């Protein structure tokens, strides 16, 4: 008799077996005629220039950081959510403690979101560089 988590492990194993079975069946049936052109990286028929493992946009990191913050917060809130109904009442009296505790916890993170928002890190557009205009370059005569 397996426990519930044993069944979940079984699901993982069956998933892996299913993919393996599919790939092995395909490996038996399919043709295999590789050639250098076929094995090159696809780039719409052009010859690829350089490798793609390059530095990518910094904004992806910011999104990842903000996500991490919120995800950890949500994980901590799950146990709170399960017991909230029981904790918010003793008999018929409403107890605000649990709710206010959550508000304080969330407020700290919402302040973080507000900070990121104000700093403009949620805007995906590139900050526009200042392009000097002709009249900035002309030295005007004084007086």
């Amino acid at each position: 008799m397996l426990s519930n988590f044993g069944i979940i492990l079984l699901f993982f194993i069956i998933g892996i077996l299913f993919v393996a079975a599919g790939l092995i069946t395909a490996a038996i049936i399919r043709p295999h005629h590789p050639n250098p052109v076929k094995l090159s990286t696809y780039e719409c028929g052009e010859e690829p220039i350089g490798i793609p493992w390059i530095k990518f946009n910094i904004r992806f990191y910011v999104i990842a950081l903000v996500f991490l913050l919120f995800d950890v917060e949500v994980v901590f809130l799950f146990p709170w959510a399960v017991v909230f109904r029981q904790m918010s009442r003793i008999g018929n009296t409403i107890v605000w403690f649990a709710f206010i505790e959550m508000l304080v916890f969330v407020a700290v993170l919402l302040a973080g979101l507000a900070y990121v928002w104000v700093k403009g890190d949620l805007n995906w557009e590139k900050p526009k560089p200042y392009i000097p205009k002709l009249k900035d370059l002309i030295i005007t005569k004084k007086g």
Partner: protein
Amino acid sequence: MGQHIITLYDWLAKLSNSDLIAVIVVAVLPLIFLVVYALVAILGELKISAFIQERLGPMRTGPWGIIQPVAEVVKLLQKEDITPEPANKTLFNLAPFLMFTAAYAGFAVIPFSSHFVPAGINLGLFYIFAIGSLAVIGIVMGGWASNNKYSLLGALRSVSQIVSYEIPAAIVILTVVVLANSMNLQVINEKQSGWFWNWFVFGGPGSAWKILVIPFTVVMMLLYLVASLAETNRTPFDIPEGESELVAGYHTEYSGMKFAMFFFAEYANMFIVAALVTILFFGGWNSPFGSFMSGPFWGVFWFIIKSFFFVFVQIWLRWTLPRLRVDQLMGVSWKFMVPIAFVCFFAVGIWVMFM
């Protein structure tokens, strides 16, 4: 759960006198369902898109093209499998395994009926949420290991999008946990039993005062629907695989059966999010009409009908809406959905305290 009901597992174990057979049947049944569902959904997608665009769709394979998906799987089976020379072979081959296994593992806690849930763990919602995030790793793995610029860009976009939309989705799930007091999907379903006004989209069971909370729960349902579209990379959030700019996104380099596995995983994820919408907001396997047409077998019927409806909604939206730009996408998530989700969360919290 206090009461003990004869589940499919117990029934099978009694019938076959062997726990092993019961365990295997319980764990394989969702796989059979998934394969059949994927074929139906592929055909559905072809035919619905054809209907929306005033075409006929596939017509040649079988009557009205109904065996088209089978033909496509057979075709993909015999396609040559190309691993590009510069790719990182290990990660490249591992990605389809991870994608499909993560999607299939999500099925472990989905209650198909009052008497059939493969693993009724108390952490059900939390588990689905965690397993759903594994897909992100599969996408990064596949995209990065392909050593292709389109793949890398697609993977990065996909990850930033999934990650952004997970926050509103998580807060909505959290709110449902506050309403239901439990993370066990089976318990959440039982809480919504009775007529359809007991569903959480209509505020859950309660007095007439729940009219105050209905606007928030409806908004939550819509938020979750939108976020789940983004999490499965479906249009209007399919910039990771926007054909016009990125060829096929993170699975550009995949071919043959490995590509088919990515596809399977996508359809499996579509079903999981549709099933979650059904379970969280539309009563899961509960009949909408009280005890009329309810029971373990009708439960399967209602659950699958409701889930298929939401799969249909996803397909319908895909062929109706154009895709968003990257900046709009991030803006929608962080500047609208997260604040709205928090407002709903606070409102439902206060309502739960007073009710």
